[in-house]
């Protein structure tokens, strides 16, 4: 028992769990037909539930999971999984039908229109009753998670944001606050608003389909599942006192001490590699980082426009292509920065404390 728990704890280090999630995600979008088949998904669900049930035998895990304000997150996890599975499965079925030259399910249903009232309204009313039951039962069994009266001299440790913001709070570990707290959320909102203007493809609209929209769906799901949901889960269940990382079966010990020695890119280049010490002038000191960042945003879009994404470039035109690439690169920069931190203890690529600018 202890051995299993220790193994799970070890597996749940940020780098392993993040990489493993990405691998699973890749397998899911690469083999959607197999992944959504009952033969694979039911055993996986069984495994997940069994793992969950096993976890509940652990005092600490149970305490974290059943804390009244964490219960919705557990529920959310299963609901999100279900809906992702459901949508992709519908797409896969339609793909298969289309391959066989049949029409999509949606098309066949189009012929059987009924009135909203009473048919839809009635069903919605019944669902509203069902929700009311859930809320009532919930309120009976889970009491409001009240804490002690706020005390200005004592900060709660860990101090956590509302659960839906814990993904962003997790980003604070890797990014300067103005990026994690201002820039990235702004990009998320702008990016979501921009989707209909960038993706004007009408092909595949009106019915579920995976094959026709593999790239678009995969990109969206990556942002949603890996960069939002996964980070919330990590932030909620695996960050304990002093924002230290804890495995699911590890007790949240306030005294846990782990070394955290992060260095800036300029220090790696000028001290470790060149051995000449940091230049006094910030512009010289941070030049490599600035060049690297600029290069990251300029070079790949240019090359891709000529090679792999030539057709997309032609379809979108330079402005929309540039906006898309910008958004994509910002999104991808999140895991890149995380990996750089894990691999090289890299603190900032550009660090200019002179005017509080860090990337």
């Amino acid at each position, binding site marked *: 028992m202890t051995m299993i728990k220790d193994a799970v704890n070890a597996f749940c280090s940020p780098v392993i769990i993040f990489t493993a999630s990405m691998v699973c995600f890749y397998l899911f979008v690469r083999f959607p037909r197999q992944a959504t088949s009952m033969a694979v998904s039911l055993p996986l669900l069984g495994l997940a539930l069994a793992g969950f049930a096993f976890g509940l035998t652990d005092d600490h895990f149970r305490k974290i999971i059943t804390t009244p304000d964490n219960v919705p997150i557990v529920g959310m996890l299963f609901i999100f999984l279900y809906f992702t599975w459901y949508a992709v499965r519908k797409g896969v079925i339609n793909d298969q039908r289309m391959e066989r030259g049949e029409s999509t399910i949606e098309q066949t*249903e189009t012929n059987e229109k009924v009135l909203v009232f009473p048919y839809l309204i009635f069903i919605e009313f*019944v669902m509203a009753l069902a929700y009311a039951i859930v809320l009532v039962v919930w309120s009976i069994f889970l009491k409001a998670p009240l804490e002690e*009266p706020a005390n200005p001299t004592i900060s709660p*440790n860990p101090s956590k944001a509302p659960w839906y913001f814990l993904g962003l709070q997790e980003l604070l570990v890797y990014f300067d606050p103005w990026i994690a707290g201002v820039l990235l959320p702004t990009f998320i909102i702008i990016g979501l608003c921009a989707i209909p203007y960038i993706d004007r493809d009408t092909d595949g609209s009106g019915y579920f389909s995976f094959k026709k929209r593999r790239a678009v769906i995969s990109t969206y799901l990556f942002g949603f599942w890996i960069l939002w949901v996964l980070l919330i889960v990590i932030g909620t269940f695996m960050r304990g006192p002093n924002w230290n990382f804890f495995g699911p079966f590890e007790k949240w010990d306030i005294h846990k001490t782990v070394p955290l020695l992060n260095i800036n890119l300029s220090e790696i280049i000028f001290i470790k590699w060149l051995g000449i010490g940091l230049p006094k002038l910030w512009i010289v000191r941070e030049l490599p980082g600035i060049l690297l960042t600029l290069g990251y945003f300029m070079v790949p879009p240019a090359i891709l426009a000529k090679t792999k994404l030539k057709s997309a470039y032609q379809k979108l035109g330079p402005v929309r292509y540039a906006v898309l690439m910008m958004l994509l690169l910002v999104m991808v920069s999140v895991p890149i920065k995380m990996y750089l931190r894990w691999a090289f203890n890299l603190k900032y690529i550009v660090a200019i404390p002179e005017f509080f600018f860090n990337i």
Partner: protein
Amino acid sequence: MAKPNPSLYSVQKTFFWFAVTSVLLTASLAGIVYIDAKRDWKDYQKAFFKLKAEKATAELKQAASAVDKKELEKLRAEHSAARKTLESNSKSILDLNAKLTAAELEITKTKVVFQDLKQFEDSYRYYYEEYTAHHDPRAASYAAKLAEIKPRVQEAKIKLEKAEKGRDTVQAGLDALLRQEKEAQKKVDQLLDETTRIERKIEAVKPSFAKDLLNAPMLDFIAPTLEIQQVVLENLHDDYHFAKAQKVDRCTTCHMGIDQKGFEDAPQPFRTHPNLDLYLGSMSAHPIEKIGCTTCHGGNGHSVSFIDTAHTPRDEKQKAEWEKKYGWRDLEKWEAKMLPLQYTQAACAKCHTGTVEVPQADKLNLGRNLAVDLGCLNCHKVEGFEGLWKVGPDLTAVASKTDETWVSKWLQDPTRFRPSTKMPRIFHLENQAGADNAKLEDAAIVATAKYLHHHSAHPEVLRAPQGDAAMGEKLIKDLGCLGCHSAAGVTAGTHGPELSSLGSKVNADWLFTWLKDPKRHSATTRMPSLRLSDSEAADITAYLMSQRNEAFDSAAAPKADPKAVDDLILLNLQSKMRHEEAVAQLSKMAPDEKLLYLGERTIAHQGCYSCHDIRGFEQAKSIATELSDEGRKNLHQFDFGYVHDIPHTRQDWIRKKLEDPRVFDHGKVKGYYERLRMPHFGLSEVESEAITTFVLSLTQEEIALEAQDLLTTDEQRIERGRRLIQKLNCQGCHSFDGKDAILRSITEDPGAAPPVLHGQGSKVQEAWLHDFLQHPTTIRPWLKYRMPTFGLTDTETQDIVRYFALLDGRQTSYRGEVLQEVSPDRLAAGKELFEKLQCAKCHQITASSQAMGASFLAPDLTLTKHRLRSDWVIDWIKDPQAMQEGTMMPGFFPDMQSPLPDILGGDAQAQIEAIRDYLYRYDPAAAAESTAS
């Protein structure tokens, strides 16, 4: 419109689910009502009412049996006889009743007429006045209306009065008929008064269907019999950091019998408070409607569930019991938990501030006194306890007293030399265990001893003459040393150190010098001078020097391992400079220099100077944590380390720390100078519990001034005196102010014990007491005990004089006695009385006039005029027993009857005054002359 595909849109299916959800929703709503209605406190109230009904039923039985059966029978018979008479008159009663109804109707009618007219009159009057004031012409018409209505009102009034009279007449007739029966009924009722009262009480608490209905869910908002009980406390608040909420205590919702007598043996939560005279009652010092419950007990007064109120079990056993019975768990998110029962007294100090002792809080007082005595408050700063004396001896001249070897052996383990010592163990404790650490500790000890001797002053020491040890032992017992010290085989005072094994510690010359005048060796010592003669001092010295501790003498002295010394010095130096510089500095030091440096560092590290005066540390700051708000310190700030065998609560941490001060270092890897430093006091369980109570009492909680027990200026002065009395240990020898003297308890003949000082402020003159405290003289020559000279300053003396005066409700004036003019006759009468009553038989007038046991002896009366207050003398002669119970002074004037009726006409008051006047004018020189002639 096509018919919907049943596999997609089935109305039947939807109906089915509608039915299912409707039922489930109704069930869940019923669940809400159930959860809302099901409260533990309701069950407790029901149980309490049942208990109350049972008790009342038992009471009723008793009351019913107490009723005189024969008497009752007789009265009942009388009553039924009266009833029978009444029945025979039923016709006339009916008649009268009809008349009465008619009369009442008449009254109603006339009353209406009168009231109507009266309203018109009032209205006319208003308009008339209003218009007249504003010179409105309409005034005239209202004057006319008023004039017209006045007689009508008068007429209506007369009619009404007439109708009322008519009714009264009929009523009187009816009453006369009914009187006999009513009186008989009243007699029966009176006899059954008690049982009826109890029956009513039972009725009020007995379960019934109506009550069940009133308490039913959804109906219980109307007039439930089960209700939350609460007290809202006007001046007390719960501090929620950002807001202060008025304290609301709902404890009585379940603890329903807490303020009622008769539930002393009831099971909890219904038991009566164990001290109703002091708490809860409206006449007690702490009425529940003013003080509430959580003010003292702590916890969450708003809540009515066992867990949310933050009950705290008193021990593991109770915890297990509660877990089983109530599903108790620690309320993690609530800071203000209840104090476990054994520490409740900690809450007294919230409101009772500024006093040396809190009345009736014996555990808290013990803890406080221990904290003062053991020097806890020398190291730990606590607001309100500043400026205390250092409890340890002055070490600025230690070299003249003892030698380095003794000091180092003592430091290793003070209890080895003297088990009763208050000096805690500082070195060789559990967090310094192991051979390596032992070497470091020994090095630090040797260095400390070296430092102390090197920096010691060498005041001149007298040569001790040869003394008689047996005589010395007797003197120790006779002179009063035992008021403060235990010595000569007698366990007595603990104020000063036990006087054992001194031969192994000090040198005779120093001891002799010290005994002669302690202030000569140490200006700050609390030890007073007993004004010993050279031979007395020499005798005591001889006795004390003969006491040795052989085991201690033969024990090996600790040695300073040079490497350990170097290691420690290096550790110290490295905290201030780089490693290489530290090594260089160390290599430059001579061996003696090393020890002195290490000694200085050790004293600074251990904070020895907090309790002892040490040269070179006059300005040093204490090393310990401030404890002013320790009773409220956040639990997260207590480091439990790897100690898991105690509950993680504030009180358990404090207690563990007191019992085993270094335990929280257990399992931690720490450098020599990083380890915990609190010394080991070897406290008993009672002591550690008392000190824990004291530490828990230290809070800076803001309590509204109205709610506090504020001291008046006089009370503050009394407390200042008490603090001084505590410091000087006056109560070691004298009984007063609620404390009994130690010496009195070990003196066989109470007459030979130091005087009791109850009422001293009313007894003696301030100027005399002031002089006496500074320069004691002999008042009772037969006493062997000697009042010591404390070397008090004028301010201290005044404080004590004022303290005694204020204790007796007097103000100090230092004015002395103003003698009234007295006629020579009266003086002569006084002299005659004085002689006839044989005052001089016990009271010393001349040195040769004593021939009795100590108990019968009395003070020298020649001192009276300067010493005593004249009004006290009067009271004393009147009734000595009332003033001082058990005194040998006879009462000559029982019930103010004089035994000598022929003097001053037998007037007792005049006689007593004459004696007083005689005493105040008594001149020993003149008396001696007259005796001689």
